[in-house]
């Protein structure tokens, strides 16, 4: 029994359109330990997907497989038509630009201002010099952080840092947003704010994949939920929004 067994099961329908992300019989091993075993998952464009499960179930590892944070031990991963097994090292940045990644520990550069943290990514994805400032300010405005652009990350609250991280994730106009326990370190209000931002970006056309064990947020949001258990897919279901 899982926490979502009481909800009507409705798996995503198979259609002729190729999925944005396809994991096909994926294994990940660390020495003798198997972190992921025979994972086959398709994620369509503009989907809002939760990856859930207990600590150590393989949620973060699964996300890492999609952006080549780590290579798979066996199996195939295809992202937006790119077969990651055949991707040369110099093309990895092109893959990563399809993603906006949000981490539980924010991963902001503490020695750079909020503005510089975002400008760095805006610049890295090839934005023309005269457009960088406009883009950074627009991103900061979208997460309500335009007043804190000169602050350094250590001077911000957890919620504020995560909002900056969300803005940074959106800097390259990514097709896919990956959020690895984005609310894990936040209080309830801050967590809701981050979820609202993610939902906003989803409404604008981004595919959102969130790894979380926060069942309350999943229930409140609804959508497709893939539950992992000991590195395997236990269930892959769609749950309705609770309220």
């Amino acid at each position, binding site marked *: 029994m899982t926490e979502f067994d009481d909800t009507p099961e409705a798996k995503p329908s198979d259609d002729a359109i190729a999925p944005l992300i396809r994991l096909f019989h994926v294994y990940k091993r660390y020495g003798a330990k198997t972190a992921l075993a025979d994972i086959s998952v398709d994620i369509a464009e503009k989907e809002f997907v939760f990856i859930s499960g207990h600590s150590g179930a393989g949620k973060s590892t699964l996300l890492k497989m999609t952006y080549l944070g780590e290579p798979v031990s066996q199996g195939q991963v295809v992202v937006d038509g790119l077969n990651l097994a055949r991707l040369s090292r110099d093309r990895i940045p092109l893959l*990563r630009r399809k993603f906006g990644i949000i981490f539980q520990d924010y991963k902001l550069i503490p020695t750079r201002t909020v503005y510089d943290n975002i400008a760095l990514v805006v610049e890295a994805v090839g934005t023309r010099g005269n457009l960088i400032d406009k883009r950074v300010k627009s991103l900061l405005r979208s997460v309500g952080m335009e007043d804190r652009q000169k602050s350094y990350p250590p001077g911000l609250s957890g919620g504020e840092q995560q909002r900056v991280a969300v803005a*940074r994730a959106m800097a390259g106009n990514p097709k896919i947003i990956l959020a690895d326990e984005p609310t894990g370190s936040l209080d309830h209000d801050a967590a809701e704010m981050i979820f609202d931002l993610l939902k906003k970006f989803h409404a604008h056309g981004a595919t959102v994949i969130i790894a979380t064990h926060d069942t309350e947020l999943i229930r409140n949001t609804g959508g497709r939920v893939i539950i992992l258990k000991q590195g395997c897919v236990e269930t892959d279901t769609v749950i309705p929004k609770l309220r």
Partner: protein
Amino acid sequence: MIRFLIRAFKEIFSNLFLNAVTVVTIAFSVLIVSAFLLFFVNVEAMVSAWIEDIRIMAYLRQDVSGDDISEIQFKIEAIEGVKAVRFVSREEAMEEFRTQLKHQASLIQHLKENPLPDAFEIQVSPEFQIWDKTETIAIKINALLPIEDVEYGQQWLERFTSIFKLFELAGYALAGLFFMASVFFVSNTIRLALYSRRDEIEIMQLVGASDGFITGPMYFKGMFQGLLGGAVGLSVLFSAFSLISSNIGQMFSEVKVCFLPVNLQIGIVVVSMMTGWLGCYLSLRRFLKS
């Protein structure tokens, strides 16, 4: 490009001490190597000036007659690299010797017979005024039968050449050693800087920054450090040179010393920039692979 340079300079100022130490190391290496080069350049100029005045003296055997002398002179003039040939008869030579002896001329006035041989004084063309070529001409002259001996200061030249070559070899070895030391030092300081910024680099990689975007400012920084180190090293050398050369000028008015030619100075700065680049390349290659 401007933001690229801004990032590079920000990196320099964010770790000022470490970067300053790198510049000083390169400057020190450039100073040592350039000092050797300066020595070689000036010694070579002095030797070249000395060679310009060099004359080959070809001494004739006692039994050579007047007709043979004209023929030998003709043969010597035909040798490539010979500019002019002057016959110096034994009487003329004795007279010159007597003039040179001045007050000591009485030493030779009791000689019953003139012991000096007839000789040719041979001037070498400017393009042949190089040690090896002068020696070749002397060997060709010496091969002519009526010539008993040829002198052109060969012993002195040989000795000087071997000492000079030894210095040159030591200079090359030292230059190589300092080059390697500089590359090693630069690569290590850059590696230290990389490790202190590894989170930042990891983040940049995760957001899709290309290797070029990440490493570009670092390469620029390495080359800039090389440029700065080269310029500082040469400036210190020039200051020391100005001080020493004025003293040499006062003590030895005949000795003219000059600083390194501009093209060599540019070469030194380019090599020191390459040192910075290479140090950066070595550390980045290892870092990005890891």
